[in-house]
């Protein structure tokens, strides 16, 4: 056993930390909050491009695609530092779509997208969820032979027609975060409706979001940032944009989730650090908050839980570097980290007191309203990318081998 980092890892961590300390400005942090943790059009893009030139965006990728062949541990360390500094870390291209292209895509697809992703020039938005396919992702609908009169768009599903060298898509996706400011849609759509096994007829494809026929409609989340409904109206997608084999998309999505489902907690570590500083400097009713035994208990509790979330996080890197595929472990980390994060935001607003409800920008808001923001954001995090309940199902089924109903 060894729970320490190598000298090389420590050195890199310090370099990344120093770099981010210089580069992450309040304007960038505000933009990150506005664009759901993604690389927004102005400051975020500029930052990830600078990281790209250092090969820090996709460090584990081969050099030819813009990586540096690093261990997963290095990638995890960089992402931790990015969250601690407040940099955008919700990068679908670099952390989800890109690795899937690397693993399953053909050469043409790799050359087309990977170097640009690694340089931070482009990004993608997930296009999985449909109105009727949320936690049950295999319910992604579409019957190419469906002759019913009801337009697919009104039934809330995406229809794919095979037109020889391209697919013709009609229908609707929803909760596709980042779709209104990134270049590509990482789309899961049903290409074989005749297959009775629901998860065996879905394909993954890259869609240019500027394609004629795509309409994006914003939906504002509780955390203030926008996610989207994406409507497809006779959109042509070249078949070369297919990722891997046709009809294998569901497996690719699930594999990607095993590899990519992780939740660095650096941002919450920073919130805790700031909160500790705040209680040391603040008096209420004449008494230092730091002497309040209840506050001391709560902060210690959060420090412990963040340490555990971090141990679960680096365990994933350890497994990946050993050649193992985390399955229940990534679900556990996502569940534990997001639930901890929401509790921390809750505790933070309580400690701040009545002013805990003040938002960023208010002159009276302690910690610049970060607690309030994270409290709203926390509702989302235990739902998206797999609800805590789905995570618990996965832990029970895969981690403990419990039987499935039916």
């Amino acid at each position, binding site marked *: *056993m*060894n*729970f*320490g*980092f190598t000298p090389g890892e420590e050195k890199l961590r310090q370099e990344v930390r120093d770099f981010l300390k210089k580069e992450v400005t309040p304007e960038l942090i505000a933009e990150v909050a506005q664009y759901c943790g993604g690389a927004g059009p102005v400051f975020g893009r500029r930052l990830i491009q600078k990281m790209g030139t250092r090969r820090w965006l996709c460090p584990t990728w081969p050099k030819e695609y813009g990586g540096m062949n690093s261990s997963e*541990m290095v990638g995890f360390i960089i992402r931790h530092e990015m969250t601690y500094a407040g940099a955008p870390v919700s990068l679908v291209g670099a952390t989800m779509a890109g690795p899937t292209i690397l693993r399953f895509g053909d050469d043409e697809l790799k050359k087309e997208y990977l170097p640009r992703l690694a340089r931070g020039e482009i990004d993608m938005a997930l296009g999985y969820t449909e109105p009727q396919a949320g936690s049950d992702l295999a319910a992604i609908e579409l019957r190419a032979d469906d002759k019913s009169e009801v337009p697919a768009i009104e039934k809330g599903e995406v229809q794919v027609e095979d037109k020889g060298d391209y697919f013709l898509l009609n229908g609707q996706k929803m909760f596709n975060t980042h779709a209104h400011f990134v270049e590509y849609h990482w789309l899961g759509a049903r290409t074989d409706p005749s297959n009775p096994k629901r998860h065996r007829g879905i394909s993954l494809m890259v869609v240019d979001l500027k394609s004629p026929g795509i309409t994006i409609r914003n939906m504002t989340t509780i955390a203030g940032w926008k996610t989207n409904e994406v409507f497809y109206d006779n959109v042509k997608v070249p078949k070369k944009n297919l990722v891997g084999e046709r009809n294998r998309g569901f497996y690719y999505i699930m594999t990607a989730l095993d590899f990519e489902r992780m939740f660095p907690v650096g941002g919450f570590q920073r919130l805790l650090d700031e909160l*500790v500083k705040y*209680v*040391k400097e603040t008096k209420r009713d004449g008494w230092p908050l*730091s002497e309040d*035994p209840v506050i*001391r*208990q709560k*902060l*210690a*509790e959060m*420090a*412990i839980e963040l*340490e*555990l979330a971090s*141990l*679960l996080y*680096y*365990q994933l*890197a*350890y*497994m990946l570097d050993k050649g193992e595929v985390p399955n*229940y*472990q990534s679900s*556990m980390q996502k*569940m*534990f980290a997001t639930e901890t994060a929401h509790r921390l935001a809750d505790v933070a607003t309580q400690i701040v007191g009545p002013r805990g409800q003040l938002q960023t920008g208010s002159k009276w808001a302690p910690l610049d309203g970060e607690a309030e923001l994270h409290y709203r954001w926390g509702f989302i995090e235990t739902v998206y990318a797999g609800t805590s*309940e789905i*995570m*618990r*199902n996965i*832990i*029970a*089924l895969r*981690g*403990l*081998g*419990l*039987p*499935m*109903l039916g």
Partner: protein
Amino acid sequence: MDYGLNEQQEMLKKTARDFLTAECPKSLVKKMVGDAMGYTPELWRKMAELGWIGLIIPENYGGSGCSFLDLAVILEEMGRACLPGPFFTTVVVAGMIIMESGSEVQKKELLPKIAQGKLIVTLARTEADGGYCPDKVGVRAVANGSNYIIRGTKLFVPYAHVADHIICVTKTVNGVSLFLVDGKSPGIKYNLLKTIDGDKQFEVVFNRVEVPTGNIIGKEGHGNITLRRVLGKAAVAKCVEMVGGAQQVLEMTVDYVKDRKQFGVPVGVFQAVQHHCANMLTDIDTSRFISYKAAWKISERLPFGKEAFMAKAWVSDAYKRVTKLGHQTMGGVSLMEDHDMPLYSKRAKAAELVFGDADFNREVVAQELGL
């Protein structure tokens, strides 16, 4: 980072699992609760022969010189088996106090005998007020010529009735001092305490017990410093033992819910049950990682305080939650005394209340945060 055991530790784990499965069945554990000794000298001898009792004692004092992590591997298996007896108090608590602060003479005299299984040593620290802080001691030792005289009452002294020596924590002129007291000294009285898990814990009354000055362990007045270090390590050792118990509870539970049918299906198909099991595994994995991280730091001689307190704070509650869910999931059958579950749920409570519960340890973590 490396979250795995090395080859030697994997072997140690397997040996421990096989040995304890054969030699320490639950029937023995349950019998020992009602037994006056509380353990069998035969099992004690066999553990000494395996080298477990002297595992972390340096080779020049007759031990095997293994690391704290190696010890952790065995302790986890002991927790799984609910091993009764004075192993923990002799090896982990008293043994480490002697290794940490004993004089050369004391080490040479005591450690080889401990390693051979010929000496049982225990610690008398807790008093009636029940505090966990090593600085607060009420029992006094007063100098009298070349001796000290100890008066007062200690509680929760494990296996005092069979201890060759009791390390008594006292208040002396310059602070807290540790005395090595002969267990058969005139003036010592033992009364078995009736506790939740029936482990052998005693009230020990020191009625003008005379101890030679040379029996002070470490410097007079510096006992709290020794205790702080040793009890931190002992807390981590207790945590890995608790992890072993929790793991066994989960395995029993999973076996049960795969097999037990209600409404025509195994109860393990129900999401309410699945989520209980998922929560148990989450508590166990997190408990294991924080406990072993602390154990690794101890092994590497790195500062371990923060992780040790974090571990005891977390595992104290986590193990209880696991036993609660184990009962809840297995239902009525698990509530019967002849089932194995009560052994674990009672031990989880007893383990919580030694070396500081979650509240106590969280307060220390708060201090570590600079509060």
